């Protein structure tokens, strides 16, 4: 059976359960991000209720967009390379597994608003897969980050760096999606 597990990485990973949401914030849980700037912290909002940060004790990672080729993973600005950020510095770890050994292809990661073809409203969303040397404006299915194909295995890990910036004042919500084909 195909199974997905999303985690916000940190000193200990925090699993993003079905009712949870991934929160991009301004430094602390529920804090605002200044318009036109990027997140200073990431959290797991338990049950999407805004009252409990599931990642609070796990020192969650944060990925911050600096420029099309630069990122801040907590130690200042660095240039994206094949090894920067390291897999452990990518905020998101998405695992896909199946009972049988399967190869994966056509993987994609993106944010959307109402339907998968819609860009998220009111925010600028950027992402990349570990080893990418530029950010992708991963807004809507057609603009998603292309995930690397993976050879046959029962478990596949995808390490994603991701960052969001509000285009205007006010709380924003949007959906993240990963998809792939396998055989």
């Amino acid at each position, binding site marked *: *059976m*195909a199974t*997905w597990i*999303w985690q916000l990485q940190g000193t200990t990973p925090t699993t*993003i359960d*079905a*009712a*949870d*949401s*991934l929160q991009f914030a301004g430094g602390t849980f529920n804090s605002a991000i200044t318009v036109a700037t990027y997140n200073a912290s990431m959290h797991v909002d338990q049950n*999407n209720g805004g009252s409990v940060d599931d990642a609070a004790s796990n020192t969650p990672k944060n990925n911050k967009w600096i420029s099309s080729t630069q990122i801040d993973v907590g130690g200042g600005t660095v240039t994206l390379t094949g090894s920067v950020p390291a897999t452990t510095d990518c905020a998101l770890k998405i695992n*896909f597994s*199946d*009972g*049988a*050994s*399967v*190869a994966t*292809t056509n993987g994609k990661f993106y944010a959307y608003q109402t339907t998968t073809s819609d860009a998220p409203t009111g925010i600028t969303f950027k992402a990349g897969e570990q080893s990418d040397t530029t950010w992708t404006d991963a807004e809507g299915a057609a603009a998603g980050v292309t995930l690397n194909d993976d050879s*046959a295995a*029962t478990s596949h890990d995808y390490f994603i760096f991701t960052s969001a910036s509000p285009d205007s004042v006010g709380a924003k*919500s*949007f*959906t*993240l*999606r*990963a*998809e*792939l*084909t*396998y*055989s």
Partner: protein
Amino acid sequence: MTPKSKWKASLSNGETFYEDKGVYAFVLGEKSPWQKLLLYIKDNNLQITSLGIYTDDNRAFNLPSSGNNPKFSIFSQHAKPISFTMFKASAISVSGPNDEENFIVVEANYEDGNLQMWVPLYNPDNCWCIFTKKKES
């Protein structure tokens, strides 16, 4: 959940195999049944001549075959598939509607494009078809 929609494939030597049956049963940790079938096809220099999806309650979703004895004449009047392939598609959304979608897809390949048939992996009550044209070089 156990998949309810599974592939069935007929080969050029007359054999027909079913996912999760016999030598193509699911075995935890081993190559997928489809990977095993592809290896068998390669080792024996065979081709897939028909491909479809079956369910344990005897539903069948069939692509046009490349065989020579179609039941209806219309199938012999039009191009036959050149080849076939199968894949499964999975997607999940988080931080919003927590939708997880899983499909099995069988594909017939023609000179000018591919006919795909999508059936939900766990709820085979519906089927969608799409024809994707090959991009002109």
